[in-house]
Each structure stands twice: as C-alpha cells, then as structure tokens.
C-alpha cells in the first residue's frame, strides 16, 4: 500500500504532495497537467522501477530534484536525482512494497510487480525487476530471457478451460463480476479456430444477445476488461506458486494503478467497473482480509457518480489537478455526494452539460435576467438564439417564456 508521495522540482509543478487513503483514490484534472505522471511515480515508489522513461526533473542547476514517499510501514523514503547518471537512486537494502501491484496503462499495456518474484532483482540479474506487458503481450504471451514468462491470454485461457481448473473458475468469476448489472452477464463459450494459418483455438465469449464471439473480435471496451481480468488471475496464480517456492506467505495487499479507468467503456460499464474491481480481489483470494488499494485517473462523471454509495472519507480520497495563473496545483477535494453525473460534470469544470452554443446562449440569458432593467429588443434576440439550440421541452422555457411575456406586456 502506498501512503504518500511528495515531489520537488520534478513533474508539472515545483512541489506536489499527495496523501493516499487505503482504498479508493481518484485523480481528476484537465489533459496534460500530470495525472498519468503521478501514476508513473506511484508505480516507481511501490516497485523501484520505471514503467516507461524515468521522471525527468526540471532543468534548474540550483534545485535538488527529489521524490519522497511512504509505504504502509510509515517510514519516509527519499531519492534525490543523480544528474551524472540521470537516475533516481534507491538504497539497496530497501525493497519494494510487499504487495502485488498491477498498473494498467491507457495504451493497453500492463506492468506487474510481484514481491515474491521481483524483490531484490536488479538489471542484469537472472530475472527482471518487474514485468512489462505491451498491449499485444497480454494476448500473445511474453518471453523473458528466452523463457516463457506468461503464455498469454489466448493460450492460457483455452488451457485452463480444457482443465477446468481453479484458474478457469476464477477467470469465469472475474468476467461475471466485471459485466454490468441488469443485462445477462458475459459467459465463456467453447474455444474455436479462427485462422487458417494459426493452429491455436481461440477463447470465446457468449454475448448477451446469444452469439458466440472470439475474444479477439470483441469490442475495445470488452477487450480491456478481459485483459485486466486475465492479468489479475495470472498474476495471482503465479504469485501463489512463487510464494510456495520461496517459502513465503502470499501478500495481503493488492494495489491497482489504473489510467483512465473508463477507457473504451460504455457508460453502463463505467457505472459498474469500480465496484467490480473491488470485489474481484476478494473473489480471487478468498480472503476477506486481502485489501485492495486503487489509484486511478478518471475523466468520467459516471465513474465518480457510481462511487457515491461506496465512498467513505476515512478510506477514500479524491484529488484534482488544476492550473491557476500558469501554475499547476494538486489538491485534495472535499468529498460530498453530488447526486448525479451532471453535477459531477460540474465538478470536472463543465458548468452546463450542453453544447458550447447552448451554453453561450444560456449565459446571455442569465446575464440579461440579472440586469435591473432588461431591454426587450435584446431579450427577443436572445430568445431567437435560444430557439436554435434548446429542446422544445427544456424546463428552462417555463421561466424564460413567462418572464419574456411579462416583459412584452410591460413595454
């Protein structure tokens, strides 16, 4: 579990601080302010590896770029950037976090850190310091040093299905949990050949409308969900095996770093993804004491609205990146129930959930309504404008038309 992050002279601002809560942590904010960057730094703090390029500090010779963080143990650790080697040094005797970390990037790639397998490994050792999957690797498999690290979704799924083993049960369970409620859940179909020149049987899903579709042909949204489901099951299975080989107890914490949790998902799925992710870990580990910490970037008012019943300020937090006068700030936001997705749009900085033209016309209407004496000609012009952008049954008409009628009567 990650407790806090503090950055100096690196990233979008000269100083950024973030205190994480043990369960849900949301990061919101406009594009380009550093949300994904925070996930990269969180990944580094937990695993001592970079999932992409190392964070590049500001070019200020007087500043000492520093990243500090604290894990669940409470001890604060720091790393000061070494300009000579352009690296962030870490003490050799300090290992990464004792939890399974899964980082879902927005391009479909994943990074996995397993303390039972990656601890103590450095570049040049027999194994990697963390596992990096490009989007295709999750499906086709990943080799490390000539050995298959992961057989990939296509092979593993059909193998597990043939054996009807525990991994398959878990996969089935996870896919059901990740399906949105209301509809028939996605179900696993029989594997099938789909390619003349590919000897593999491909896993299939039975869609809610009854047709059996090879998973590689499903929508981008469903593919991201099942890639996540598969990787979870794979990482957990491998972790259990490694824990046994190394005489260790399985971890009690799972940390998810998810960039744009709503990516490719229809709003119905956006509403259920959060709860599903929280439940999935319980389902996998069959231990209620296994805790899940989620740090996620979101732009989706629905994801935030769907968290309302769940959200508990003791366990959860919400953060916003904001730009003011040319400076970037990261601040914790006070949580309150906003009621619906429109209000969450307001939280994300969109005042009227309408087209820009309608917003413009409404603002002109608000302006004239707030004047002491309104000019009829201007009001009529605004009225004509409103008629080109609002619907015939918009509730705004009731007040507006009544007010305009009175104004016409008065002049």
């Amino acid at each position, binding site marked *: 579990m990650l407790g806090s992050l503090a950055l100096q002279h690196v990233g979008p601002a000269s100083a950024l601080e973030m205190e994480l809560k043990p369960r849900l942590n949301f990061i919101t904010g406009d594009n380009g302010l550093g949300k994904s960057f925070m996930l990269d730094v969180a990944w580094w703090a937990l695993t001592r590896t970079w999932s992409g390029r190392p964070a590049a500090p500001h070019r200020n010779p007087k500043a000492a770029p520093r990243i500090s963080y604290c894990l669940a143990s409470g001890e604060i650790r720091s790393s000061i950037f070494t300009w000579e080697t352009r690296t962030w040094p870490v003490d050799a005797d300090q290992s990464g976090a004792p939890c399974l970390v899964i980082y879902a990037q927005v391009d479909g790639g994943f990074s996995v850190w397993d303390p039972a397998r990656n601890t103590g490994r450095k570049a040049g050792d027999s194994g990697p310091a963390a596992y990096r999957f490009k989007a295709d690797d999750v499906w086709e498999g990943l080799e490390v040093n000539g050995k298959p690290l992961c057989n990939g979704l296509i092979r593993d799924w059909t193998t597990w299905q043939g054996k009807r083993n525990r991994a398959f049960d878990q996969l089935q369970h996870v896919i059901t949990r990740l399906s949105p409620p209301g509809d028939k859940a996605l179900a696993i179909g029989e594997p099938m050949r789909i390619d003349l020149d590919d000897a593999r049987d491909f896993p299939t899903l039975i869609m809610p409308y009854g047709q059996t579709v090879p998973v590689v042909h499903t929508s981008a949204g469903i593919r991201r969900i099942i890639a996540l489901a598969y990787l979870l099951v794979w990482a957990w299975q491998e972790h259990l095996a490694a824990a046994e080989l190394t005489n260790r107890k399985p971890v009690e914490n799972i940390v998810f770093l998810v960039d744009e949790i709503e990516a490719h998902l229809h709003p119905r799925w956006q509403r259920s993804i959060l709860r599903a992710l929280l439940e999935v870990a319980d389902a996998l580990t069959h231990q209620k004491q296994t805790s899940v910490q989620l740090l996620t970037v979101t732009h989706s008012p629905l994801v935030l609205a769907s968290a309302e019943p769940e959200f508990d300020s003791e366990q959860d937090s919400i953060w916003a990146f904001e730009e003011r006068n040319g400076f970037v700030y990261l601040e914790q936001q006070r949580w309150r129930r906003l009621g619906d997705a429109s209000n969450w749009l307001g939280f994300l900085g969109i005042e009227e959930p309408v087209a820009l033209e309608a917003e413009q016309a409404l603002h002109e209407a608000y302006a004239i309504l707030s004047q002491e004496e309104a000019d009829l000609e201007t009001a009529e012009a605004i009225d004509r404008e*409103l*008629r*080109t952008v*609002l*619907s*015939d*049954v*918009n*509730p705004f*008409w*009731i*007040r507006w*038309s*009544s007010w305009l*009628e009175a104004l016409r009567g008065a002049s």
Partner: protein
Amino acid sequence: MLTAYRRICAYLCFYIEPVTGSASVDHMLPKSTHWQQIYEWTNYRLACSMMNSRKNCIANVLDPFEIEPGWFELELVAFQVKPGQKTDAQAKKRILETIEIMGLNDRECRKLREDYALLYWNRDISLAFLERRAPFVALELKRQGRLNKQ
C-alpha cells in the same frame, strides 16, 4: 395543426416551444402497416420532440383521443403519472402500458412537471400561464385542492 392543438403535445400535455426542428405531427397508426391512411387528418397527433422519438410504431400506446377524464392522475411528490382511481382493470392495464412504453415517468418528464408545479406554487408563473402551458398539471393541482390561495 399547431393552432388546433394550441401547441400542446398530445402525449405529454405540455406546451411545445417553437424551436428549430421541434414540434412534429405524429402518425398514430404506423406508416408501415397502414400506408393507405397516411394522409388522413384524423390519423395525426401533435407530439413534442421527446414523445415523438419514443412512439415509433408501437400499437399498444393509448390514442390520446380515446383517453377519458380521470384516466391519468398525477402524484405530487415525485411527479409521476398513474392510473386514476376510478379506472377499470382493462383501462388500468393499458394506461400502465402506455406509461411504460412512452416513458412518461422518466426523469426528464417528471422534472418538467415538477418545475411547472414549483414555479406555480412559488408564484413565479400565474395559473393562467400554467393552464395554457401545462393543462394536465393545472387540472391535477385543481382536482387535488393544491391551487394557491388568492
């Protein structure tokens, strides 16, 4: 047709604001099955954009012209319409079906009724305006003794 209906939507019973691309006349009988009657005046009902987008080719919806007084009532908490107390079982069934198919109690419709009633109670709009714009809401407020005191 707009004048004959006084711009009131036959299904939702609200004034249809003249906006670009709004009020449309609607075929009560689906064009696909009753093509020879498509030019009959009596076969048209005026519908606002919201209702028109919902009523496509659904034969089970009540024809606004066959609805008798008292068939629909309005409850004034969540502003849902419901079958009137004196309707018989057969009419009740068709009323409930119509509410379901047309989505007469979804959020958008309830909000509109609520706004009319609140604005009237708050004296932001007059009873005359309410009667002209939302005749069903006005009727129900009157029937339930919820009109403002003079």
